[in-house]
Protein backbone atom coordinates (compact mmCIF):
# COMPACT_ATOMS: atom_id res chain seq x y z
CA UNK A 1 0.00 0.00 0.00
CA UNK A 2 2.85 2.41 -0.64
CA UNK A 3 2.20 5.73 -2.30
CA UNK A 4 3.93 8.42 -4.24
CA UNK A 5 3.14 12.08 -3.70
CA UNK A 6 4.23 14.68 -6.22
CA UNK A 7 4.13 18.41 -5.60
CA UNK A 8 3.77 20.98 -8.37
CA UNK A 9 6.07 23.05 -6.25
CA UNK A 10 5.63 26.43 -7.86
CA UNK A 11 1.87 26.32 -7.38
CA UNK A 12 2.29 25.90 -3.63
CA UNK A 13 1.34 28.88 -1.46
CA UNK A 14 2.81 27.50 1.74
CA UNK A 15 -0.49 27.46 3.57
CA UNK A 16 0.34 24.27 5.50
CA UNK A 17 -3.17 22.82 5.25
CA UNK A 18 -1.83 19.61 3.73
CA UNK A 19 0.49 19.09 6.69
CA UNK A 20 -2.44 18.93 9.11
CA UNK A 21 -4.34 16.11 7.47
CA UNK A 22 -1.67 13.52 6.74
CA UNK A 23 -2.50 10.50 8.88
CA UNK A 24 1.19 9.45 9.01
CA UNK A 25 2.41 13.02 9.40
CA UNK A 26 4.98 12.99 6.61
CA UNK A 27 3.91 16.18 4.81
CA UNK A 28 6.06 19.06 5.97
CA UNK A 29 7.09 22.50 4.79
CA UNK A 30 10.46 22.68 3.11
CA UNK A 31 12.04 25.53 5.03
CA UNK A 32 15.17 25.30 2.91
CA UNK A 33 13.41 26.20 -0.30
CA UNK A 34 11.65 29.27 -1.56
CA UNK A 35 9.50 28.83 -4.65
CA UNK A 36 8.84 31.26 -7.44
CA UNK A 37 6.01 32.85 -5.46
CA UNK A 38 8.25 33.41 -2.45
CA UNK A 39 6.85 30.64 -0.25
CA UNK A 40 8.39 27.63 1.47
CA UNK A 41 6.69 24.83 -0.43
CA UNK A 42 5.25 21.68 1.10
CA UNK A 43 7.03 18.39 0.55
CA UNK A 44 7.26 14.82 1.78
CA UNK A 45 10.54 13.69 3.22
CA UNK A 46 9.85 10.06 4.12
CA UNK A 47 7.97 8.97 1.05
CA UNK A 48 8.11 5.29 1.98
CA UNK A 49 5.73 5.89 4.86
CA UNK A 50 3.03 7.24 2.50
CA UNK A 51 -0.12 5.12 2.51
CA UNK A 52 -1.56 6.83 -0.62
CA UNK A 53 -4.68 7.95 1.21
CA UNK A 54 -4.87 11.14 -0.86
CA UNK A 55 -5.81 13.30 2.10
CA UNK A 56 -3.12 15.92 1.51
CA UNK A 57 -4.22 16.33 -2.09
CA UNK A 58 -7.86 16.61 -1.14
CA UNK A 59 -7.10 19.25 1.44
CA UNK A 60 -4.87 21.36 -0.80
CA UNK A 61 -6.74 24.40 -2.11
CA UNK A 62 -4.30 24.86 -4.96
CA UNK A 63 -4.20 21.44 -6.62
CA UNK A 64 -0.49 21.25 -5.96
CA UNK A 65 -0.46 17.55 -5.13
CA UNK A 66 -0.84 14.40 -7.18
CA UNK A 67 -1.02 11.06 -5.36
CA UNK A 68 -0.31 7.68 -6.90
CA UNK A 69 -0.57 4.20 -5.45
CA UNK A 70 2.43 2.03 -6.21
Amino acid sequence: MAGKVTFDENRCKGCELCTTVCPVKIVIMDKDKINIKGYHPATVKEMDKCIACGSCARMCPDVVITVEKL
Partner: protein
Amino acid sequence: MTHQIIMAGFGGQGVMSMGKILVEAGLKEGKNVSWLPSYGPEMRGGTANCSVIISEEPVGAPTVTEATAAIVMNRPSLDKFEKDVIPGGDLLINSSLIDKKATRDDINVYYVPANEIANDMGSGKIANMVMLGAYLKITGAAKEDTIMEYIAEVFSGKKASVVPLNKEALKRGADCIK
Protein backbone atom coordinates in the same frame (compact mmCIF):
# COMPACT_ATOMS: atom_id res chain seq x y z
CA MET B 1 14.00 69.73 -5.06
CA THR B 2 11.05 67.41 -5.56
CA HIS B 3 11.47 63.80 -4.54
CA GLN B 4 9.22 61.45 -6.42
CA ILE B 5 9.68 57.96 -5.15
CA ILE B 6 8.20 54.60 -6.03
CA MET B 7 8.40 51.92 -3.34
CA ALA B 8 7.45 48.40 -4.28
CA GLY B 9 7.58 44.83 -3.04
CA PHE B 10 5.57 41.86 -1.78
CA GLY B 11 2.71 42.57 0.56
CA GLY B 12 4.11 42.07 4.05
CA GLN B 13 7.48 43.62 3.23
CA GLY B 14 6.33 46.91 4.66
CA VAL B 15 6.60 49.06 1.54
CA MET B 16 3.39 50.90 2.38
CA SER B 17 4.52 51.83 5.86
CA MET B 18 7.97 52.75 4.59
CA GLY B 19 6.26 55.31 2.39
CA LYS B 20 4.03 56.54 5.18
CA ILE B 21 6.92 57.05 7.55
CA LEU B 22 8.74 59.05 4.95
CA VAL B 23 5.83 61.39 4.22
CA GLU B 24 5.15 61.85 7.93
CA ALA B 25 8.74 62.97 8.33
CA GLY B 26 8.46 65.18 5.28
CA LEU B 27 5.39 66.84 6.75
CA LYS B 28 7.20 67.38 10.05
CA GLU B 29 9.90 69.17 8.13
CA GLY B 30 7.33 71.46 6.56
CA LYS B 31 7.44 69.97 3.12
CA ASN B 32 4.56 69.31 0.80
CA VAL B 33 3.91 65.60 0.62
CA SER B 34 1.62 62.98 -0.83
CA TRP B 35 1.39 59.21 -0.60
CA LEU B 36 -0.58 57.17 -3.10
CA PRO B 37 -0.89 53.42 -2.69
CA SER B 38 -1.64 50.84 -5.32
CA TYR B 39 -4.86 49.09 -4.45
CA GLY B 40 -6.75 46.16 -5.72
CA PRO B 41 -7.83 42.62 -5.12
CA GLU B 42 -4.40 41.32 -4.19
CA MET B 43 -4.04 38.08 -2.35
CA ARG B 44 -2.07 38.11 0.84
CA GLY B 45 1.53 38.06 -0.26
CA GLY B 46 0.79 39.69 -3.60
CA THR B 47 2.68 42.73 -4.78
CA ALA B 48 2.11 46.25 -3.55
CA ASN B 49 3.56 49.66 -4.23
CA CYS B 50 3.16 53.29 -3.36
CA SER B 51 4.06 56.61 -4.91
CA VAL B 52 5.55 59.15 -2.51
CA ILE B 53 6.21 62.79 -3.20
CA ILE B 54 8.16 65.19 -0.99
CA SER B 55 8.56 68.67 -2.33
CA GLU B 56 9.19 72.31 -1.50
CA GLU B 57 6.45 73.23 -3.93
CA PRO B 58 2.77 72.25 -3.78
CA VAL B 59 2.36 68.70 -4.99
CA GLY B 60 0.96 68.44 -8.48
CA ALA B 61 0.05 64.99 -9.71
CA PRO B 62 0.15 62.47 -6.85
CA THR B 63 1.08 59.80 -9.36
CA VAL B 64 4.76 59.16 -9.96
CA THR B 65 5.49 58.38 -13.58
CA GLU B 66 8.95 59.97 -13.61
CA ALA B 67 10.55 58.77 -10.42
CA THR B 68 13.56 60.48 -8.89
CA ALA B 69 14.04 57.22 -7.04
CA ALA B 70 12.64 53.71 -6.87
CA ILE B 71 13.04 51.31 -3.98
CA VAL B 72 12.34 47.75 -5.08
CA MET B 73 12.03 45.00 -2.53
CA ASN B 74 11.45 42.03 -4.82
CA ARG B 75 12.09 40.85 -8.32
CA PRO B 76 8.73 41.64 -9.97
CA SER B 77 9.03 45.19 -8.67
CA LEU B 78 12.44 45.63 -10.25
CA ASP B 79 11.09 44.39 -13.55
CA LYS B 80 8.14 46.72 -13.37
CA PHE B 81 9.64 49.97 -12.14
CA GLU B 82 13.24 50.16 -13.34
CA LYS B 83 12.09 51.96 -16.46
CA ASP B 84 10.27 54.66 -14.50
CA VAL B 85 13.37 56.17 -12.91
CA ILE B 86 14.49 59.40 -14.59
CA PRO B 87 17.99 59.53 -15.99
CA GLY B 88 20.30 60.40 -13.12
CA GLY B 89 17.78 59.06 -10.63
CA ASP B 90 18.35 56.43 -7.96
CA LEU B 91 17.35 52.79 -7.95
CA LEU B 92 17.65 50.90 -4.67
CA ILE B 93 17.54 47.15 -5.00
CA ASN B 94 16.96 44.73 -2.17
CA SER B 95 19.75 42.39 -3.14
CA SER B 96 18.77 39.81 -0.51
CA LEU B 97 15.76 38.77 -2.56
CA ILE B 98 16.71 40.01 -6.01
CA ASP B 99 19.57 38.25 -7.71
CA LYS B 100 19.16 40.17 -10.96
CA LYS B 101 21.15 43.31 -11.69
CA ALA B 102 19.73 46.53 -13.03
CA THR B 103 20.00 46.89 -16.81
CA ARG B 104 20.17 50.68 -17.17
CA ASP B 105 23.38 52.64 -16.90
CA ASP B 106 21.94 56.17 -16.91
CA ILE B 107 20.82 55.87 -13.31
CA ASN B 108 22.52 55.31 -9.98
CA VAL B 109 21.93 51.79 -8.76
CA TYR B 110 22.43 50.71 -5.16
CA TYR B 111 22.28 47.10 -3.96
CA VAL B 112 21.22 46.80 -0.34
CA PRO B 113 21.05 43.34 1.24
CA ALA B 114 18.14 44.50 3.36
CA ASN B 115 16.78 41.15 4.47
CA GLU B 116 20.17 39.83 5.37
CA ILE B 117 20.88 42.87 7.50
CA ALA B 118 17.44 42.72 9.06
CA ASN B 119 17.73 39.01 9.81
CA ASP B 120 21.16 39.70 11.19
CA MET B 121 19.52 42.18 13.55
CA GLY B 122 17.06 39.52 14.60
CA SER B 123 13.93 40.89 12.88
CA GLY B 124 13.29 40.22 9.22
CA LYS B 125 10.41 42.67 9.38
CA ILE B 126 12.56 45.77 9.46
CA ALA B 127 14.16 45.22 6.10
CA ASN B 128 12.07 48.17 4.95
CA MET B 129 13.75 50.45 7.50
CA VAL B 130 17.12 49.33 6.27
CA MET B 131 16.15 50.34 2.75
CA LEU B 132 14.76 53.61 4.01
CA GLY B 133 18.03 54.31 5.81
CA ALA B 134 19.90 53.77 2.59
CA TYR B 135 17.51 55.98 0.67
CA LEU B 136 17.82 58.83 3.15
CA LYS B 137 21.58 58.64 3.01
CA ILE B 138 21.51 58.93 -0.77
CA THR B 139 18.92 61.66 -1.18
CA GLY B 140 18.48 63.43 2.12
CA ALA B 141 14.76 63.60 1.33
CA ALA B 142 14.16 63.74 5.08
CA LYS B 143 16.42 63.85 8.10
CA GLU B 144 17.03 60.66 10.03
CA ASP B 145 16.21 62.58 13.20
CA THR B 146 12.78 63.53 11.96
CA ILE B 147 12.08 59.95 11.04
CA MET B 148 13.12 58.83 14.51
CA GLU B 149 11.05 61.55 16.12
CA TYR B 150 8.01 60.24 14.29
CA ILE B 151 8.79 56.65 15.14
CA ALA B 152 9.18 57.54 18.78
CA GLU B 153 5.76 59.13 18.71
CA VAL B 154 4.14 56.09 17.19
CA PHE B 155 5.89 53.54 19.35
CA SER B 156 5.49 55.06 22.76
CA GLY B 157 4.80 53.40 26.09
CA LYS B 158 5.06 49.63 26.01
CA LYS B 159 6.10 49.45 22.41
CA ALA B 160 8.96 51.91 22.89
CA SER B 161 11.40 49.05 22.92
CA VAL B 162 11.33 48.82 19.14
CA VAL B 163 12.52 52.38 18.68
CA PRO B 164 16.24 51.63 19.02
CA LEU B 165 15.88 48.71 16.64
CA ASN B 166 14.45 51.03 14.00
CA LYS B 167 17.19 53.55 14.57
CA GLU B 168 19.78 50.84 14.17
CA ALA B 169 18.10 49.64 10.95
CA LEU B 170 18.19 53.12 9.43
CA LYS B 171 21.84 53.38 10.33
CA ARG B 172 22.78 49.97 8.94
CA GLY B 173 20.97 50.87 5.74
CA ALA B 174 22.78 54.17 5.50
CA ASP B 175 26.04 52.38 6.09
CA CYS B 176 25.52 50.38 2.90
CA ILE B 177 25.85 53.58 0.91
CA LYS B 178 29.42 54.60 0.54
